[in-house]
C-alpha cells in the first residue's frame, strides 16, 4: 500500500477538515461566503486540496439544475461539501469547476 500524499497550504487562515485537521483550502481562495448548504453556511472556493470526488450527480438546487460531485476529505472520508461540475443556467456558470465547503464541516486555523 502506498503513502497518502497530503498537501499543505501556506499562510494564515487555512480551512481544515474538522474531523482530521488536514488542510483543505486557504481563505485566500474564497470567492464568496454567501452560500448556504445542507448543514448551514457554506463558502465557495476557487481551489481546494486533499479531497476526493464522488460521482457526478444531477441536483436541483434553488439556483437551478446543476451537475455536482460531493467531495470528501481524502484522509478521513468525511463529506466536506461539493464541486460544481456543470451549471445549466447561464447566470450560474461562474461556479463551474469551483468548490463548496460547508462551514460546519471545517475547522479554521487562524
Amino acid at each position: 500500500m502506498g503513502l497518502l500524499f497530503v498537501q499543505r497550504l501556506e499562510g494564515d487562515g487555512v480551512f481544515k477538515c474538522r474531523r482530521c485537521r488536514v488542510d483543505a483550502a486557504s481563505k485566500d481562495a474564497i470567492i464568496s461566503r454567501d452560500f448556504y448548504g445542507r448543514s448551514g453556511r457554506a463558502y465557495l472556493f476557487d481551489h481546494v486540496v486533499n479531497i476526493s470526488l464522488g460521482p457526478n450527480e444531477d441536483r436541483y438546487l434553488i439556483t437551478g439544475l446543476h451537475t455536482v460531485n460531493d467531495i470528501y476529505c481524502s484522509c478521513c472520508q468525511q463529506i466536506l461539501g461539493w464541486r460544481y461540475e456543470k451549471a445549466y443556467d447561464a447566470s450560474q456558470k461562474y461556479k463551474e469547476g469551483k468548490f463548496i465547503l460547508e462551514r460546519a464541516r471545517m475547522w479554521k486555523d487562524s
Partner: protein
Amino acid sequence: MASTSPQTPPRPRRTEVGHWEITSLPEAEGWDSENPRSDEHNQCSAPSVDMQEDDSDDFHPTSLTDAGLIHLIEGCKRLEKLTLNWFSHISERGLLGIANGCWNLQSLALTGGYVPNHVLIALAEGCNLKELKLCAVEELTDEGLVEFVKIRGKSLVSLDISICNDCVTDRSLDAIGTYCHKLEVLSVESKDVKENKGLMSVAKGCQSLKSLKMLGLGVGDAALEAIGSFCSALETLFLDRLDKCSDRSLFSIANGCKQLKSLIIKSSDKFTDKSIELVSRNCKLLQHMEINGCHKVQTAALEHIGQLCTNLLGLTLSRLLIESNAFLGFGQRCFLLKSIYLDMCYEISDEAICHIAQGCKNLRELSIIRCYEIGDQAIISVGENCKELRELALHCLVRLTDAGLAAVSQCSFLQKLVIFACEQITDDGLTSIIRECHDLVHLGISDTKKMGDTTLAKVGEGFPKLKHLVMLRCHAISDIGLAHIARGCLQLKVCVVFQCSQVTPAGLATLAEGSSRLQRLVVEKGKVPEEAIEKCRMINGRLVILNGRYEIDVFGEHCEENLLLV
C-alpha cells in the same frame, strides 16, 4: 448588538448587517400579531433569544462579543432558552457569564464556537438545563460531556450532539446511560462510536427514551437489540447510515417497541423487506414511516405496509426500487393515510398513483417528486378521488400537461400548490384551479418559460387569500406580472422572486408597495441595488430583502421552510 453603556439594559432591536441577524427581544417594532412570541413576554424577561453571526476573519463592529452577551444576561434574568449560532467571537468569559447568571436557563443550543470542557461543566453547575444541543463546537471532548452528564444528568430530558469531534464516543454514551435516567430525546451524529457497549448502556439506563436519532454510528445489531429490549417507551426511531445494522436490529425493535409511532430509516444496504414486514405487523401504533435510499427494501415491503399498517398517517418513500403494482389495493387497510411523499422512485407509473388515489380518499398531502414516468392520468385520478386534498407538490413531472393539471380543480379545499419544473404547463394550466380553489394560500412555480404574466394576472384576480408566492427561474414573468400580484394579493406575506430574468428592481418595488403585510421578499444577490433596498424598507417598515445564495436541494427536506423563513 451595538455596544450599550453598562448602565442601560440592552434595548430590544432587530438589526441586520449583511448576512448577520440578531433577532431581538420582544416588543421590538414590527412584530407581526400572528407571531405567537409577541404576546408572551415583557421587556426584561425574554424566554428565548436567537443569535446568528458571521465568522469572517475581520472583527465586525457589530459582532456579538462577551460584553454584549453579558449585558444581555444581566437584562434577562429569567432567560429560559438561548441559541447561539456561529459565536466564534465569544470566549469562555461570555459562556461563563451564562453559567453564572442564568440559573433558569432550561434550553441551550450552541453551534459553531469554542466550548472548552471546563465551560460545559460550569454550565452544568450553573444552569438548570433540561435540553442541550451542540453542533460543530470546538475544544469539547468526551471528558467534558461525561462530567456534564454526571452533574446535570438528573434533570436532562433532551440531548442533541452532532459534528463535534471526539464528543460522542463509547465512553460518553456509557455515561449518558449511567446518569441520564430521565432522558427522553437523544440525537447523536458521530464517527467516534465504534462499539456496542455505549449504546447498550443507554438502552439499560434511559428506559424513558421516547425519541432516538442516530447518524453514522458504528454500532451493530447487538446494540439495537438492547434498545428493543429495554426502551419499550420508544415512539420515534431515526436511523441514518448505520452501516453495521441489519434486519436483526429492526426485528428487535419490532418485538420490543410496541409504542413506536414513527420510523425513519435511511441509507442502508442491509435492511430488507423482511424487517419492514415485521415492524408493520408488530408496531400497531405506527403513524409515520420513511424509507430513504434502502435499496433492498422493494415492492414486497410496500405490500406489507399497505396490508398491515392500519394506523398509518404519513408515508415517505425515497430512492426505492418499487414498482407500480406495489400499490395495488393500497389504502384498503390503511385508509387513514393523510400524507404521501414519493421521491425518485423511478419505476412507478401513473397506475401506482391511481391505486393510491382510489384507495386513500382521505389524502390531505401528496408530493410526487422526480418520478419521471408520472403524467396526466395520475393527476386526473388524484383530482377525481382525493377531494380532501390540501397540499399538492409536483416536481419534475415532464409528462404532465395542462389537461392533467386542470383536474386538480376538483380539489376545492386546496391550500398549497407547487409546480416545479413541469415544463409542459402553460398559462392555461392554472385557469380551472384558479376558478375553483378559493382557499389557496401558497403557490410555487419554477423553471418555466411558458407560465408568465398571464398566469400572474389570473393569480392576482383569483387568489385573494394568497400568503406565499414562490417563483424560481420563471423567465416569462416580468414587472407587469408582479404588478398584478401587487394589486390583487393583498394578504401576501412572503414572496420569492429568484432568478426571474425579466424582473427588474422597479417591479420588485411595486410588489413591496402592494401588500402591507409583505414581510419577506427573497431575490438573488445583486438584483436590487442598495438605494432600492432602502426605498423598500421605507415603504414597509418590516420588509426584508435577503440576498443569500441558497444551494439547498430544492427537493430536499425543509427546502420550502428554508426559503420562506430565511
